[in-house]
């Protein structure tokens, strides 16, 4: 149940070359955004194992955000395509687990799109505030 004091916790996996750099840029450009998404840096969005997404949800995250380079721009050529394929399949499975669509998100954010980091994190945070916490029933 979403309450007035509920602050969602989002785990963000950002690829080093694009999205992580973009969040750096958001910092140097002094673009303020919600603090709800601590960032875990990986070298490439292709490093993001679906186990990480599930682990984050199991550990209490309300959402997971994966940020990678735009298709065609991956620093390692095709890592983001692999991330895309895994993500599409993972979303189908997550649906069966009752994970709302907004909770796990894959975004392509290039190194110069600091404003997009701001936009996505703000949007996701607000969506999850409305959706409420992801609570795993452990009976």
């Amino acid at each position, binding site marked *: 149940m979403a309450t007035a004091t509920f602050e969602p*916790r989002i*785990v963000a996996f950002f690829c080093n*070359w*694009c999205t992580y*750099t973009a969040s750096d840029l958001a910092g*140097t450009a002094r673009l303020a955004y919600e603090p709800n998404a*601590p960032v*875990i840096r*990986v*070298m*490439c969005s*292709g*490093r*993001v*194992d679906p*186990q*990480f997404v599930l*682990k*984050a949800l199991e*550990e*209490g*995250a309300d959402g997971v955000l994966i940020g990678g380079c735009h298709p*065609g*721009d991956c*620093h*390692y*050529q*095709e*890592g983001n395509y*692999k*991330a895309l394929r*895994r993500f599409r399949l993972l979303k189908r499975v997550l649906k069966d687990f009752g994970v709302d669509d907004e909770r796990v998100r894959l975004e392509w954010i*290039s*190194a*110069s*799109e600091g404003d997009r980091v701001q936009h996505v994190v703000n949007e996701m945070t607000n969506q999850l505030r409305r959706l409420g916490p992801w609570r795993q029933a452990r009976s």
Partner: protein
Amino acid sequence: MKLVTITIDGIETEAEDRTPLLQVANTVGVKIPTLCHHPLVEPYGVCRICMVEVHMRNRVRMVTACNYPVTDGIAVFTQTDRVRRTRTMIIEWLLARCGQVPVLNALAAEYGVTEPRFGRGDDTCILCGLCVKVCSDVVGANVLGFFNRGTTRYVGTPYDEPSDKCIACTACAQVCPTGCITVDDEAEQIRGELPLGPRTPIYIPTMQAVPHQPVIDAASCIHFKTDACRVCATVCESKAIDHGQQDRVEDIQVGSIIVATGFQPVDAAKVPQYGYGQYPNVFTALQIEHMVNASGPTNGQVVLKSGDKPKAVGIIHCVGSRDRNVHDYCSRVCCMYSLKLAHLVHERSGAKIYNFYIDMRAAGKGYEEFYNHLLEEGCEFIRGRVAEVSDWAVTPLERGKLVIRVEDTLAACVRRIPVDMVVLSTGLEARADANAVRRLFNVSCSSDGWFLERHPKLAPVSTFTDGVFIAGCAQGPKDIPDTVAQAGAAAAEAMSLIDRGQVELEAYTAFIDDARCSGCQVCVPLCPFSAIEFNQEKKVTQLNGALCKGCGTCAAACPSGAAQQHHFMDAQITAEIEGVLAQ
């Protein structure tokens, strides 16, 4: 090669047997006038102006020097009475046909013909046939020919119709001795552009070109159109010209690359309210730059399209820069080049100069001082973004002028300023193919299309791809001092990479734990750097750490957890997840 001895006006000289007499006379400095002679065309003695006396044994003959083959023992006289009388007659006959041609009149003056006995005709063509010969023998287009005979003979095109075989090489106009063939540059009328000055298909690109050698523009070269000409190759003493050169694609193995592909100027047509392309005297700064250059089309004079000097010139800053409709950013160099042009235009034409600016960006050594100098020069600076340039006159003063309508924000009023010439200070933008180029080198572009530096403060000339550096305007708009400094920095970084003699590999490579690997080979096709291979003999999958670039996608895919990435192990990332979510 048989050498013969002849005398010309008493001067004894040797020459190869059967050399045209005119050529030999040139070598000893004896001047003989010609009209129908041209070094590229076989001489055929049709205008007769070059006739001289030749004494051989006891015979005296009048011959055309241009095509008379010298033989041993002849004595040539070029200034005898007979020669002068003959020449005078020929001049008079030529004047009878072409009475106003300047070169004929110059000859007439030299030979004392003041009242030609046969009158002055008003034709301009002396039927020398040079144009016909050049067009057929040199250029190979065969467009011109002689038609009719006798007094009605003339030079023209088949059926007197404009020929579609004419390739507009203008060779005929260039060889015509009387100037009766002229070239009309229609382009100037259609596009309203300044003619950039004639340039032959073979040309040296700029005064500062390195190497300082000519290139051939295959698109306009006559040889590639008609398979003839090749005059350049004929006159080149070093025989350095080869029309058969083909583009060569070379594979050069390098260890580092500096991408310095520059910028392109913003197309002034993107700001249509300033009238570029609409009004004839709206120029871009680059065009004015060309104009004030001493080797430009006007020899450095600042003139309007009509050829008159402008009395008032308006320079509009920030065309395509600081403009939400084109580019948000400031192009950095335009304020200073606008000031430079303001100074030069005023110097050349004495015109009153107006600068329309948003801010004056004069950060640099001597820049602010130069701005002050301009203020003292009487240049007027109006702070406001120009709304439009038009030719609508509201007052008599504005008639025939270009009116710049602008809000003068410091005076808090809207002004209309009539000028003769408008100069648009266009900004810099990333080249149209920047996206394609940067993909070649696996670098990123920043939002405006400039190449992305690794870090704006700490690594301005490197990119995220090791070994690829960027310099100059390709990285963002900047002026020459900054470009040179950046180029030096990029060169230094490239050098240090080469000097190091070894490459540091990434620490965060992946590896495969043999004990856990089942040889399922799911990871093998995933590596774009071919770092993973299945060893058929040992039946295990192996990862080459030297090829691995450290993306970790194999580790994410490995269903056994056998492939892992140094510094990004599953356990480490899991610990991070637990850490950020710890209450």
